[in-house]
């Protein structure tokens, strides 16, 4: 059982504040008055809505279809009526809107027909696709579609599968409670991942401040008869970061340019394993998750919450104290104040903290950097935050990249230890989003340039072709005229008196006529060929249209008809010329 653990550099030990919310068991939150389900809940493509206003939906019914491979489907969290498919405020620091499906619950909470998925007899691709269809994403906070991580590297054999139950961020206890109460299902979910990736061993890392969870997991592993190893890891923020946990458990350091599978490691959150098991064994897509509600509330507790539940309704269950002045989504290190209290719970929401000034006193003003180097010692990625800070501040983004700003995981250790109270992470986020924006602009400019150059090239070519055609036509015209003149002369000569001058002219005109006929024949043949080709050409890629695509096409056709009928053809014809 004893195992050699490794260490990552840096890290901090903020007060954990976890005991408040572990006293009570998980409670199921009641169905709220309405559910706002954002379509874009995972990294990757935004799912396309497949329901319309007025549609009746059942719990677990698909409402957003995955768009592309890195994307995950979205489902109705309860049965009810779709009352809107429109832009709604998101739980995002920007406070901007995004496409969401709003559902008014009917209170029945009626499931769709749930079918377990027999994954042992299915191809790995089918299992991955099934998980995508079930909307299984990483529930640790990054919400990366899980099926995208379940493909082993072709060249490197899979050594270790790391299951992340560290939950290092203060206040959050949803994974802890999940492991205590539903350890068996978590372990079975891990079994699915193990079967897909076929690693040599499976390590379940749990911070040593959660002995009950570790004990429950150990018991479950034994009960099921698996050989997974439950490893307590030292409590140190951010031990729950994927790269940090991999480092602690396996000693492997994942380089910036590589993926962990390139080193034969893959990492999943315990809650992800749980939802994967629910999806496979019970046919339940991800429509709810565990959320810790804590902070400035009377009864901190973990709830099983439907995705799309407004945060204020959820918070009210825990009876927030009257001086609550905001909601933090996530933990105090990496979380953010939500722009509005009524924004919905999404798949990334692991914790809500009722904010007040006693718990989170307002930050004292930022002081100048004194180059003490505390941030560099605390950084779990061995970066130099003070350098990145300096250049982000000066907006010298090239230099920030030289200091590897994109390796920063924004864990907040540097801001936590900074004696000058500099909000370092905010500077890094600013620099990163500026660099991304610039890259987008650069790509757009490059594309525009290529298209512009191609257009110029095309115009040149068209001009050249036109000139060539004109020259040819002129030549043909001249030849025709010459032939006519010659023919006229010949007929004159033959008609009146057979002069010797006419002799050579007649064969020439005959030759010209023959040439012309041949040319006409080739032109005719070419036209026939073109016609045949046109007849043979069929619209491509139309055989295997999905229902949504067919519907799109129909919509476009309808719109085109409407546009055509609204403009009188006479008028348009008049103005075209």
């Amino acid at each position, binding site marked *: 059982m004893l195992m050699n653990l490794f260490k990552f550099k840096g890290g901090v030990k903020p007060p954990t504040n976890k005991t408040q919310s572990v006293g009570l068991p998980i409670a199921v939150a009641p169905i709220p008055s309405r559910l706002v389900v954002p379509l874009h809940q995972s990294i990757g493509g935004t799912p396309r809505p497949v329901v319309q206003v007025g549609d009746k939906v059942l719990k677990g019914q698909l409402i957003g279809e995955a768009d592309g491979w890195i994307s995950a489907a979205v489902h109705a969290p309860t049965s009810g009526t779709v009352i809107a498919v429109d832009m709604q405020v998101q739980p995002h620091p920007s406070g901007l809107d995004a496409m969401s499906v709003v559902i008014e619950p009917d209170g029945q909470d009626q499931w769709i027909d749930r079918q377990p998925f027999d994954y042992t007899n299915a191809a790995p691709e089918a299992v991955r696709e099934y998980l995508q269809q079930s909307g299984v994403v990483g529930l640790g906070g990054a919400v990366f579609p899980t099926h995208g991580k379940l493909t082993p590297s072709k060249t490197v054999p899979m050594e270790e599968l790391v299951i992340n139950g560290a939950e290092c961020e203060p206040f959050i206890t949803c994974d802890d409670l999940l492991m205590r109460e539903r350890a068996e299902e978590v372990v079975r979910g891990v079994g699915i991942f193990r079967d897909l990736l076929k690693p040599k061993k499976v390590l379940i890392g749990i911070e040593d401040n959660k002995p009950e969870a570790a004990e429950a997991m150990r018991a479950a592993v034994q009960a099921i008869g698996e050989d997974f190893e439950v490893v307590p890891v030292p409590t140190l923020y951010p031990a729950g970061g994927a790269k940090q946990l991999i480092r602690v458990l396996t000693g492997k350091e994942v380089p910036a340019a590589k993926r962990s599978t390139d080193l034969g490691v893959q990492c999943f959150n315990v809650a992800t394993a749980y939802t994967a098991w629910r999806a496979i064994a019970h046919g339940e897509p991800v429509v709810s998750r565990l959320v810790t509600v804590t902070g400035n509330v009377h009864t901190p507790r973990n709830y099983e919450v439907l995705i799309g539940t407004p945060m204020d309704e959820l918070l009210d269950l825990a009876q927030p104290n009257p001086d609550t002045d905001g909601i933090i989504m996530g933990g105090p290190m990496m979380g953010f104040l939500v722009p509005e209290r009524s924004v919905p719970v999404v798949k990334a929401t692991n914790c809500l903290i009722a904010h007040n000034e006693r718990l989170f006193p307002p930050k004292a003003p930022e002081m*100048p950097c004194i180059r003490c180097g505390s941030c560099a010692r605390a950084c779990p990625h061995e970066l130099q935050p003070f350098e990145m800070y*300096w*250049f982000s*501040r*000066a907006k*010298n983004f090239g230099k920030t990249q030289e200091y590897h700003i994109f390796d920063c995981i924004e864990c907040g250790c540097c801001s936590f230890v900074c004696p000058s109270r500099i909000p370092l992470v905010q500077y890094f986020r600013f620099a990163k989003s500026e660099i991304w924006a610039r890259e987008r602009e650069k790509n757009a400019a490059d594309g525009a340039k290529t298209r512009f150059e191609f257009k110029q090239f095309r115009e040149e070519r068209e001009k050249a072709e036109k000139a060539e055609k004109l020259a040819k036509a002129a030549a043909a015209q001249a030849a025709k005229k010459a032939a006519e003149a010659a023919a006229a002369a010949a007929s004159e000569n033959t008609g009146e008196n057979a002069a010797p001058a006419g002799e050579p002219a007649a064969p020439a005109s005959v030759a010209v006529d023959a040439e012309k006929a041949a040319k006409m024949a080739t032109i005719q043949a070419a036209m026939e060929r073109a016609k045949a080709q046109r007849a043979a050409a069929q619209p491509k890629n139309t055989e295997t249209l999905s229902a949504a695509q067919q519907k799109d096409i129909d919509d476009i056709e309808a719109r085109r008809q409407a546009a055509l009928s609204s403009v009188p053809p006479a008028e348009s014809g008049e103005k075209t010329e």
Partner: protein
Amino acid sequence: MSHYLFILVGAVLVNNVVLVKILGLCPFMGVSKKLETAYGMGAATTFVLTMATGASYIIDHFLLMPFGLEYLRTLSFIVTIAAIVQLTEMVIAKTSPALQQTLGIYLPLITTNCAVLGVPLLNIANRHNFVESLLFGAGSAVGFSLVLILFAGMRERIEGAEVPTYFRGVAIAMITAGLMALAFMGFAGLDKYQ
């Protein structure tokens, strides 16, 4: 042998051409905004200055002195330096057009960089022989590049600093240069061991 070392180290640090002799301040303030341009300017000046000291020694000793034409020194040195600068510019234009553009007006201005004329004249005043002249020229050039690059590094950092509005830009650069000069005065202590 140590005599040559003293000349070299003395030219780089103790009698630094910019901070102690106060020669060549124009490019020192003008091309020190970015580290990359400072590297380029340092390299160009090092090349020109070393060539200029060698060429001027040869001209002085084999052309001017034998015929008693010492009064033509300044004139002929300037012509030689101008030619070398022109040559350097052609080479840079060929190898690194961006560097040529960033150096901009300062590249032809190496011609009138007083350090480039000053060092050959100091060579003659100090009665250096050919090797000493080359060493002194190269040392001065390295000293120039050294402070230019250090200064550019500092100015790049100052960009991010909270400088009072009225001190931003050249004003804070002047203050920094002054502090640097003070620091280089400390090298005067090396003289004791000469």
